[in-house]
């Protein structure tokens, strides 16, 4: 039956039909008045858990399976006053999925924060704790009871300070809390906590856009320990180390750098001095990256030392600069240079003296013969007297030159120095004028030293003559002896005398004193401050040479106008004083066959004579070619080849190689006047005997090599060739 439809109802029906969700209006009996297509499709599916029973309003959510897919529906039912029911079924699957996703992602976030290696904390804009992870709890193990959401940050740190969590807070907890609050409120900050239990925690704090504070906390104790170890290592390096950043600002320095640039190791002073040092000496060089050669600078440090500066570039554009104190090295090089100079002069002097003595024999000899003639005119006699005086003076000079030129201890014996000084008493008194009071200050300890007695006498004599000449108007001259240790100087440590008991032999005067800039030249031959004709300039160099060869050192104390004391320190030798020792008693030969190859007749014959005299069967060759002839003539294998290295034609190495090829068991000893020849061996490796040597040294070495025994140390020492 058709009835007239109310246009408004028609509008409702149409709207319901077009509504995207399921929608239906039921009457009181539950019969559908109007429903859309969606409702008719879905309602049967939700009926099992949301059936309309007319009992009242309902709002339920449930799952429905449609074609194997689970979907969420919300069923809302409202009863009208007229007894009708409005049922609304809406698909909320999407919303449900989003909700689930959100929960999952929140859980993941929580897990992520939880799994952080660092401690994590979130504080809200009013500094109250929102959340932490368990690593945070582990780090802040002194305050586990108060780590709860909502607790103010200030309370956390105040309690931590009370419980002495931080080393930094021990001294003034209140001040630390104040400062910590400031850093917490800053936009961001990275700083370190040093915990009382030894741990180091690095804290990073950042503000979020909404004013929250995120803190992360890393335990950097292991890192700190490594850093401390590294720092201790760097601090204990003797070289000063300076690290500069790319702008040449000092970013690190070690303790040696502090000490080098400030005598009080005061960081501020040292840093300031280093800063100006870098600006003054390094900046230009570093800018050009030109540091192939280290620089040596003097008088730039606090103590005025000589330093060697070595910069090197770092990957970050900065530089590491090391400073080595080369004061001692420079001084040693200086001394080495000085002693080489003296040695060279010594060689020269020895050679010159030989020629001079021949000339002086003739000059002085003829003059002395001539002056005996009674018929001489007074003029000629005066002339001859002058010649004799001059030649005597020259003879004395050559004698001193020879003493200086000698490199080997000549006749070293164990003696009591007291006897030597006492033995000089009378002679010294004749040399010193009455205006000078000569005193002896002798501590008769009985300690012995190993010296050549006549050489030591010569040294004392020279010092006394110098002292005398330093007091032209008279004064007091003291010759003394006492037990003492050598002063702590570089020379002392070079000679190995530090801490060793020594006999100090001193000669002091209260004369003019010595100018400081003259002291370095004092021991140079021909250096003299005396007037022309009054001194040879050899006296002190002879003293130096004697003391040097006796293994002692000389010390000078002087003050201008107050006087000078020269002290000779000689190491005390254990043992009884000795008389002349038998000539090479231990080095005798037993008809061993020794071949001497040497182009210099003096050396060749000396070696030949020494070896033959002591029972060796010796063969001589004048050069390499001669040695080859000898090699062919030999009927029995030789035991040892002693060969010069530098010779015309075949050199010593070649000679040795040829001999060794024929007689592999042959022992070899090289000799040369050039110590550096030891390095460029082309022949068999063998001991090296530096020239000049004494007959005793020669036979001692030959004996030791033949016996396969340890080779005696010579001065200069033996070097192994090859």
């Amino acid at each position: 039956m058709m009835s007239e439809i109310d246009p408004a109802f028609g509008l409702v029906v149409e709207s319901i039909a077009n509504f995207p969700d399921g929608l239906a209006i039921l009457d009181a009996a539950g019969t559908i008045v109007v429903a859309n297509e969606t409702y008719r499709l879905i309602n049967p599916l939700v009926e099992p858990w949301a059936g309309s029973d007319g009992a009242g309003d309902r709002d339920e959510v449930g799952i429905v399976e449609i074609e194997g897919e689970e979907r969420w529906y919300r069923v809302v039912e409202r009863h009208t006053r007229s007894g009708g029911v409005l049922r609304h079924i809406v698909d909320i699957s999407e919303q449900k999925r989003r909700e689930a996703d959100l929960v999952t992602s929140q859980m993941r976030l929580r897990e992520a924060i939880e799994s952080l290696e660092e401690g994590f904390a979130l504080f809200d804009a009013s500094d109250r704790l929102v959340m932490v992870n368990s690593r945070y709890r582990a780090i802040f193990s002194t305050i586990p009871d108060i780590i709860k959401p909502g607790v103010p940050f200030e309370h956390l740190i105040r309690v931590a300070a009370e419980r002495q969590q931080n080393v930094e807070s021990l001294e003034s907890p209140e001040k630390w809390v104040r400062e910590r609050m400031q850093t917490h409120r800053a936009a961001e900050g990275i700083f370190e906590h040093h915990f009382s239990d030894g741990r180091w925690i690095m804290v990073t704090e950042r503000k979020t856009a909404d004013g929250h504070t995120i803190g992360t906390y890393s335990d950097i104790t292991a890192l700190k320990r490594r850093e401390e170890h590294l720092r201790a290592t760097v601090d204990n390096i003797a070289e000063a180390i300076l690290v500069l950043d790319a702008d040449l600002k000092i970013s690190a320095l070690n303790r040696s750098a502090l000490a080098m640039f400030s005598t009080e190791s005061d960081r501020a002073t040292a840093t300031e001095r280093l800063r100006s040092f870098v600006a003054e000496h390094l900046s230009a060089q570093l800018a050009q990256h030109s540091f192939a050669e280290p620089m040596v600078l003097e008088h730039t440090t606090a103590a005025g030392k000589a330093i060697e500066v070595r910069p090197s570039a770092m990957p970050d554009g900065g530089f590491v600069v090391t400073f080595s104190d080369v004061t001692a090295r420079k001084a040693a090089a200086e001394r080495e240079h000085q002693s080489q100079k003296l040695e060279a002069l010594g060689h020269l002097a020895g050679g010159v003296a030989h020629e001079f003595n021949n000339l002086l024999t003739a000059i002085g000899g003829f003059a002395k013969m001539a002056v005996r003639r009674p018929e001489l005119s007074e003029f000629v006699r005066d002339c001859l007297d002058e010649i004799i005086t001059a030649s005597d003076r020259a003879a004395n000079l050559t004698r001193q030159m020879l003493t200086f030129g000698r490199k080997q201890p000549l006749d070293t014996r164990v003696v009591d120095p007291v006897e030597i000084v006492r033995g000089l008493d009378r002679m010294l008194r004749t040399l010193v004028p009455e205006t000078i009071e000569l005193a002896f200050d002798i501590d008769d300890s009985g300690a012995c030293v190993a010296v050549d007695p006549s050489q030591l006498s010569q040294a004392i004599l020279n010092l006394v003559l110098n002292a005398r000449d330093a007091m032209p108007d008279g004064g007091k001259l003291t010759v003394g002896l006492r037990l003492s240790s050598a002063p702590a100087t570089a020379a002392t440590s070079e000679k190995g005398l530090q801490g060793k008991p020594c006999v100090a032999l001193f000669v002091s005067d209260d004369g003019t004193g010595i100018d400081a800039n003259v002291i370095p030249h004092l021991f140079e031959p021909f250096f003299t401050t005396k007037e022309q004709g009054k001194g040879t300039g050899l006296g002190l160099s002879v003293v130096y040479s004697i003391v040097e060869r006796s293994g002692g050192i000389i010390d000078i104390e002087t003050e201008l106008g107050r006087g000078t004391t020269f002290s000779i320190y000689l190491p005390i030798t254990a043992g009884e004083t000795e008389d002349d020792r038998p000539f090479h008693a231990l080095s005798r030969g037993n008809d061993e066959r020794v071949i001497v190859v040497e182009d210099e007749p003096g050396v060749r014959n000396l070696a030949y004579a020494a070896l033959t005299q002591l029972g060796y069967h010796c063969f001589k060759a004048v050069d390499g070619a001669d040695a080859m002839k000898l090699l062919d003539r030999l009927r029995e294998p030789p035991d040892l080849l002693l060969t010069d290295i530098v010779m015309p034609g075949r050199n010593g190495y070649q000679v040795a190689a040829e001999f060794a090829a024929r007689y592999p068991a042959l022992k070899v000893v090289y000799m040369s006047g050039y110590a550096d020849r030891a390095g460029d061996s082309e022949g068999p490796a063998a001991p090296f005997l530096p020239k000049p040597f004494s007959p005793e040294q020669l036979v001692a070495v030959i004996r030791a090599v033949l016996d396969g025994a340890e080779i005696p140390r010579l001065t200069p020492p033996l070097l192994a060739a090859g």
Partner: protein
Amino acid sequence: MPNILVIDDNASVRKAITLMLESDGHSVIGAKDGADGMRAFLDATPDLVICDIIMPDKDGIEIIREMHRTRPDVKIMAMTGGGRFPNLDFLKMARAFGATDALSKPIDPDELVARVDACLAG
């Protein structure tokens, strides 16, 4: 009859020593090297030889050794002015090879004469 043989490669030294010894009444013959010296030693049969040590060709040590072997009764004095080796070692060597005395140059006439006289007397 020359009683002293002086061997030195330096003519001035040879002449000076000769003069010193002759003024003391000795007769002297000079030789400029080992070979020359050995000839004179054998021909002239001196009572005393004064021999320099550092010389070209044959050195004094060798000469002294040879002479001492040939005629141990002849007195020998060695002398040297030093050089690359210390005097003492040479003179010690010379004594070891038969020299009765050793002189250091430069030679003083009075000392020479005294030592020579002592040597010939001893």
